[in-house]
Every structure is written in C-alpha cells, then in structure tokens.
C-alpha cells in the first residue's frame, strides 16, 4: 500500500494540500511518485501567478513521461520549493515532506471538494 497521511486533503489527481493560516502547501502523493517512477524534472508556476482548483500549477516528469500537477486549491502562488526543483528525486524519497508549491487560498470552501485520507485511500484501488 501507498502511504497516505491522516491530516492532509487530497485531489483525485493525486496531489495533497495542507492548509495553515490561509496558505496551502501542495505536493504530490506517494501513489503519484510511485506511478511515475524515478522523477527527473519538476517545475511549478512562478510566485505571483494565479492558479485555479483543478487547473495546472506545474509539471513533474519521469524518464518516460511528463505529467501536469493540478492545483488542489485556487489562489496566488507564494513560493516554489527550489530544493525540489533542483533535486527532483526528493519527491521519490519523501513526497509528503518535499512540497512543491505554496498557494494563498482565495476560497477556503474549496477544501470541501477534496478527499480526506480515508476516501483518498479508496481512490487508489
């Protein structure tokens, strides 16, 4: 089984978000990193850019394929994790510690559209 953390919210497209003080920290799930295989490239939208829930906010690529990262929440990008951009394999090592983007939420109600850990676990089957 793939690791799912209790305290996070999940999208059906395999991103996670953790919200604190109106700021969402966003990454990809253990299931996602495992499906992709060795990750060799990561990019995120630049700070200042607006993203919307379910829309693109970056991309992650393995040797074989490119795959978009979908924003689990709408808002303004505040920060991109440069360490992950420079060391993409960190996402394989620990996809929950190694976040990709921080987004200032424009609508906290959107969190209701996301899955909790228990429902996301079912999604993976």
């Amino acid at each position, binding site marked *: 089984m793939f690791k799912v953390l209790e305290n996070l919210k999940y999208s059906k497209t395999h991103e996670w978000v953790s919200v604190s003080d109106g700021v969402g920290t966003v990454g990809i799930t253990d299931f996602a990193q495992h499906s992709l295989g*060795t990750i*060799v*490239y990561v990019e995120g939208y630049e700070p200042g850019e607006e993203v919307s829930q379910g829309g693109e906010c970056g991309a992650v690529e*393995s*040797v074989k394929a490119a795959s978009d990262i979908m924003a689990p929440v709408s808002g303004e990008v505040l920060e991109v994790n440069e360490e992950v951009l420079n060391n993409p394999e960190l996402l394989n090592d620990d996809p929950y510690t190694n976040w990709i983007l921080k987004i200032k939420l424009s609508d906290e109600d959107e969190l209701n559209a996301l899955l909790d850990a228990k429902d996301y676990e079912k999604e993976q089957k």
Partner: protein
Amino acid sequence: MIQKTCLYDNHVKHNAKIVEFGGFLMPLEYTDITSEHLAVRNDAGVFDCSHMGEILVTGKDTLSFLNYLVTCNVKEAKAMKMTYGLLLYENGTVVDDLMVYKINDEKCMLVVNASNTDKDYEYILANKKDYDVKIENQSNDYGQLALQGPSSLSQLQKLTSYNLSELKYSYFDYIKLDGKDFIISRSGYTGSDGFEIYGSPIDIIELFEKLYNNGVQLCGLGCRDTLRFEAAMPLYGHEINDQVTPLEAGLSFGVSLEKGDFIGRDVLLKQKEQGLTKKLVGIELLERGIARGGYELYKDDEKIGEITTGYMIPNTNKVYALGYVKIEYSKIGEEISVLIRNRKVKAKIRNKKFLNKEYAR
C-alpha cells in the same frame, strides 16, 4: 487482440510493470528505467524481443526478390551477415525498417517491428509478383532475446564452447548454448555491444532464466527506448513512418540507390537530385525542460518542425531530442526553440552523436 510473448509469465514472476506495446503485453521496467539503462551501458542486460516478427523468404529468386523489395543490397551482402534496410511504399515513405539475415542465396530471414509484422507480411505477399519465392510468417515459432552491454560476451561465453569473440559485429551463426540450438547475431538496438538470440520459445524461456540467475539485469521497453534514443537509432512510429523517406530520416546507409530498381527508388532519386525539404536532426536544450515526442519546434514565431523522441539521458542532466526541421534551419549550431507546455524553451541543433559507441563496428 492483445498478444503475450512466450516470456509473459516470467515477466510477471519478476515483478515487471506491464504495458501494451505493438499489440503485445510487454515489460516496461522490472526495477526502474535508469538502473536498467545503466546496467546495459556498464554491465549486461537482457530484453525479451519475442514480440518482433520473423518472416522467412526462401526459393531461387530470394536475392533478386529482396533486392526489389527492400532498400539495401542483399545480393552483394555476405552470407551469414545481417544488413539494415527499409521497406518502402512507391512514394518513398516507410512501411517499416528491418534487418535482413542472409543465410544463403536462397534463404533469408527478415526481422521486423512487432506492430508491423502483419502489415509487412501482407505487403510482401502483395509485391511477390512472379518471383520464385516462398514467404512465411514464422513469428510465432521464434522467441527472441537481446543480451546487451559490455559484459554480454563473457556472460554468453559461459554457456557455449563456440568462440564468440570470433563473431564480429553484424555477423550471425547457428550456435549451441548448453546443447540447445539458437541463431545468434552480434548486434542490438542499444548502442552497446551485444547479441540478438533466436530460438524456440521453450529454449528462450530457459535461457532468459539462466541469464537472470547469472546476474544479468532484466531490462524492459522503457530503457530499450532510452538506449536506442541515446544511440540515435530510429524507431518506427517516431523517427520513421509513412510520412518520411529514409533520406529525410538520415538513413541513407541503409539504402543502395546503385543496386538497380526497388520499390520507392524513383522518388528517392528525385529527392536526392532536388534536395530535401526537411530532415531529422539532433537537438540539445539550452534551458531547463524536457523535450518530448510531438512537441513543436520554432524559429522565432515560425513553426519549423516537431520532436520525434526526447529524453533527459538517464543519470545525467543532458536533455537531447531527435526531430524533423525544415532544411533551412537544420545546420548544426542553429538556435531554435521547443514549445513545452506553452512556453518556448531555447535549444540548438547539434549532431546526433549523443553517445560515444565503445565497440568496434
């Protein structure tokens, strides 16, 4: 119908991630693409190639028929040597690329791409004309392995008294491995030294497990693609298809225009005389990003072509691609851009020698 090769159960047993390719369920990777890629470059890896097609041509007109059918000169080729050639449409574009194994003047085996086997077989039958030849699709009678990498020779030598170092690049022979009969050529599709091995499905299964037990890395289609790409070898459906000619694809080494008539020759002669309008080039990215097959190429605002295959070479930060560009932008050093997710990323045209091949041709 999706088919399985004779090794399907072995792939499952060895925990391969299975994908569909060319109508077959094949292993994409057993461990991960990068480590399998490096095993072939530094040690040895074995691939299941049983999905590929084997078409046998026999009869007294074998050589004249093949010289009319494919681009290479089979008449002039040495016996027990393989030659690279292409099967063309009348308009000079590509039906498939293949290896001709010339057994003797009346017997040749064509090894073709899995996804094209039925198409090729039909096409060959349709062009048989009055040639006195027999054409048999024997694809189901053969299993095939490719043993690739610098340790291939020592690994295979453990299984036979035949002096394999005498088998030079692109030659083949009937060789016994642990008493079983195989056809083995010194060849491959990775850019590293190695062997391609044909045998009955049951013997191929046994050999596969034997190589595994002797420490050879099992390799899937994922690294087969990164390896052949790094060696700038074309793949049907990417670098070659029914929209391009061998000359545009840079494959003139597989085309003998001098040998006399063959299907598609007139168009190639004309193209050679008038000059090409597009050609396959090597591309190197100058900024961050990975160029993938299908991405568009630009010179300023003008679309000048498309990527056919692109990768970050495993275990490096180098991002290379192959792609077609209009001839006026095909000079080495020309600065162009690749459209990646709506962003233009700087790149330049370079030679296709991504890999320094370390074995003697």
